[in-house]
């Protein structure tokens, strides 16, 4: 096990596997900003095997596993070695793909991982011009002073295995970009929505309403404001837990369609 100290190191390790020219499979799509933060906090490590690199990111209470490999066979051999020499604790791995039946998922399941949850990607392709405008004084832009309160909501209500809870710096960056909407009631933030806007693509990252304030259309108000802000985009997308049928129905109502894109969250409690 070695600590990763820079995003460059991740690229170099990826490059080394790729340049074996025997194939390339991965679940690691690193964002340089996030990797730099992991390096800053010393929470990213790698394990090198023939034709495979595992990256392990230490989260609160568990470790997130990423892989880069030349093939399923090489990954399987490395995984067996990796697990045999691994200390105890929960390992979480995301397996992504365009098919609901992924060989890599089966590979992990054959080695002690169990499906914890799954997500599907939903997309809407069109212009959002003409979306209903929201009442301007109920949805606010989050300020830097809201960071602590939002982080506390993450800690309390989000499932870290599934949701990839952001670091403080990531939240601050979204706030600085004006991409964090909050809904306040009774002196508190009771709902928030965080998004990325890149050119023609609007990406919903997080959408939350406090359990005590649900069924009051707060989520719908935040969502409409989100869509209004992306009215010049061509594509809007997000991941949703596949078992959340009510939410999926609601998204379909808004014109979203299920993409052929799956993310299985698997866990191994060693």
């Amino acid at each position, binding site marked *: 096990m070695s600590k990763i100290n820079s995003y460059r190191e991740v690229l170099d390790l*990826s490059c080394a596997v790729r340049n074996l020219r025997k194939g390339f499979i991965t679940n690691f*799509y690193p964002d340089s900003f996030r990797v730099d933060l992991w390096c800053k906090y010393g929470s990213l490590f790698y394990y090198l095997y023939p034709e495979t690199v595992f990256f392990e990111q230490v989260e609160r209470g568990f470790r997130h596993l990423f892989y880069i490999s030349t093939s399923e066979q090489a990954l399987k051999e490395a995984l067996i070695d990796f697990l045999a020499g691994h200390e105890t604790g929960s390992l979480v791995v995301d397996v992504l793909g365009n098919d609901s039946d992924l060989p890599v998922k089966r590979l992990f399941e054959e080695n002690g991982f169990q499906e914890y949850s799954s997500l599907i990607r939903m997309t809407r392709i069109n212009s959002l011009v003409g979306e209903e405008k929201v009442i301007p004084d109920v949805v606010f832009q989050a300020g830097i002073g809201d960071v602590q309160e939002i982080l506390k909501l993450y800690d309390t209500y989000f499932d870290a295995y599934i949701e990839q809870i952001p670091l403080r710096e990531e939240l601050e960056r979204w706030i600085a970009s004006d991409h964090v909407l909050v809904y306040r009631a009774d002196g508190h933030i009771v709902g928030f929505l965080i998004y990325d806007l890149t050119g023609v693509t609007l990406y919903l990252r997080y959408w939350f309403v406090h359990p005590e304030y649900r069924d009051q259309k707060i989520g719908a108000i935040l969502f409409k404001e989100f869509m209004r802000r992306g009215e010049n985009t061509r594509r809007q997308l997000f991941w949703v837990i596949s078992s959340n049928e009510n939410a999926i129905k609601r998204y379909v109502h808004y014109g979203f369609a299920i993409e052929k894109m799956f993310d299985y969250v698997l866990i191994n409690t060693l």
Partner: protein
Amino acid sequence: MREKVIQILSELRPEFDFNDSLNFMEEGMLDSFDIINLVTALDQEFGISIDGIDVLPDNFSTIDRIIGLVEKNRAV
């Protein structure tokens, strides 16, 4: 080659017109997940193996850059 690259991009993200963009990355038409899939598709289509050091977002930002990448790796 240009037509083939456009076809691959269109199959990857059919919602976009890749002829009408100055920078696929900055305009949010491709993300890191798409790039990995695009590299695989280019490798298969052109019988190459794109060098790992070239798998950077900038190299996939326009059709000309993608073509340059394919040609560079064909020459290896």
